[in-house]
């Protein structure tokens, strides 16, 4: 019996380790290729570790994409902050001020979150052109904020729903109004929710490709993922540079994920309306 149990446990761990190894393969390949000098990037040595740490690939990739990296920072940070603020006040209203039709409206918000962008891209470009925001970072930040309205409202709403109404009633008796309750009761309790939402929005906006590609036509302003795609698409760029560029593009979200994985998981579950 115990021997059989030992076998089962061993098998479970083996399968899990095999899965974990599989999910790490692309990262392994990116890292070892990114650290190889150009002459070692070939078929025979593809799976082998680099002979040493060569930074020429990383350096060349950084020279190519660093302006775009900065663009992404300048787009992602304000967009994530603004959309989190909008989300917190919207979530507060949807959770605690449930006017007639609020639930239906909320569902309409959520439906909008799930629909593919391809169904709105053309009017989006036409509208941005008309108001003079096409091709500008401000325009892209605004678009990210708008498309973030549903998910941020959802995340904050489910968080605020857990705050007891008695607390709000007490504040009301003390003379707090709509803004007072938000400012003095909910906001001080919101830190965990802000962390989840900021993390979620940061990751989503940083990893965006389609909207950045459509809204910013100039390669000079392009966000990092668009730049990496341009490098990968041109056959003149060596693989070690391509992989390094991909690593640079992935680094911020990977660091944030490793540091705050638990929050990420919470956003993941809430984003599917579960949990």
């Amino acid at each position: 019996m115990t021997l059989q149990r030992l076998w089962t446990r061993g098998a479970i761990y083996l399968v899990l380790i095999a899965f974990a190894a599989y999910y790490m393969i692309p990262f392994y390949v990116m890292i070892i290729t990114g650290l190889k000098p150009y002459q070692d990037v070939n078929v025979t040595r593809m799976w082998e570790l680099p002979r040493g740490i060569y930074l020429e690939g990383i350096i060349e990739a950084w020279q190519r994409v660093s302006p775009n990296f900065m663009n992404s920072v300048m787009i992602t940070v304000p967009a994530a902050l603004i959309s989190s603020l909008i989300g917190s006040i919207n979530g507060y209203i949807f959770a605690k001020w449930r006017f007639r039709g609020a639930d239906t409206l909320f569902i309409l918000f959520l439906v909008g979150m799930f629909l593919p962008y391809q169904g709105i891209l053309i009017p989006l470009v036409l509208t941005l052109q008309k108001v003079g925001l096409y091709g500008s970072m401000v325009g892209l930040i605004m678009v990210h904020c708008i498309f973030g309205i549903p998910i941020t409202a959802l995340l904050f709403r489910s968080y605020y729903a857990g705050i007891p109404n008695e607390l709000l009633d007490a504040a009301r008796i003390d003379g707090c109004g709509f803004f007072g309750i938000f400012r003095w009761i909910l906001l001080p309790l919101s830190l965990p929710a802000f962390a989840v939402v900021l993390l979620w929005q940061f990751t989503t906006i940083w990893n965006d490709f389609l909207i950045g590609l459509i809204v910013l036509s100039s390669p000079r302003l392009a966000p990092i993922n668009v730049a990496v795609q341009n490098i990968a698409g041109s056959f003149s760029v060596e693989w070690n540079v391509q992989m390094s560029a991909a690593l640079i593009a992935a680094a911020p979200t990977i660091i944030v994920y490793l540091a705050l994985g638990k929050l990420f998981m919470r956003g993941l579950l809430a984003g599917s309306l579960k949990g």
Partner: protein
Amino acid sequence: MADRAVSQGEVGLAASIKGRKRKSWWRSDMLLAVLVLSPSIIAVAVFIYSFIAWTFYISTVKWNSQVPDYTFVGLTNWVRLLGDNRFHIDLRNLVYYAIGFMSQCIIFGFIIAALLDQKIKGEAIFRTIIIFPFAVSGIVTGVAWRWLLQPTTGINILFAKIGLESFQPLWNSHPKYGMWAVSIAAAWQMTGYVMALYLAGLRGIPHELREAAAIDGAGTLATYRYIIIPLLLPVTFTAIVLTGMNSIRVFDLVSAMSGSGPAFATDTLAFNMFQSTFGAYRYSLGAAIGSFMIILSAFLVIPYMFSMRGEVER
């Protein structure tokens, strides 16, 4: 008695005054709430719903060059699209991709979650590794997998090393089944997400149920077959909807891996829409593809929203 009636009346009056006061105060704050929400309502109404309607409208006009032309042509673009060979290939690719992607995500996601639920040492580490790919972008995923799936480099070299010299698939360069290869890369990214959903679902199943099954003599497999899998059906439904919607819109990964590929083998609706609209300036045709994608997604989103209604309204 009269005394009491008066005092009762007073209490009633006082209460009603207080109530009225409270109510009007409540109303003005309620109005404020709606007012504060209204910019977001307008933004969603304009940027999502009116834009969808606008896209449908563009799909019914004659704007298929760089110059806007709003001559109404009815369903001409739709008829052309439905008869278009590339569109047919896109639909075939969607089926290949959806089957490959969804089954990998759901089967592997469930298996890993079920294994992680067995009081595993280092569970957090396994979980972190398996969700890891979800933190990187579709472009990064595409760059890494493009190399892994090149017929002459990557995984095929590993196959050759373990004696499978004759098993050298073309992966995403295959002129017919390239989309299956793309689904491998996509599932690599999304399985962790599905796994997280299942794990949360498994943690929500009361222990008494499993114990009861064990007492009734059900083995592990029987417990899963008759108790756990049926109980996780709502999670499976969520996973199907989320991965299904992801299948309809796949764009980044295809752009980074192979574009539309040989004979459009890895072309998708989203990629076709992008090229038709912003590459070939056939706006009305692109709008028809975009509208078609909205309709397709609605088949998944609307039932999903109905099933979630209870959860949303609490």
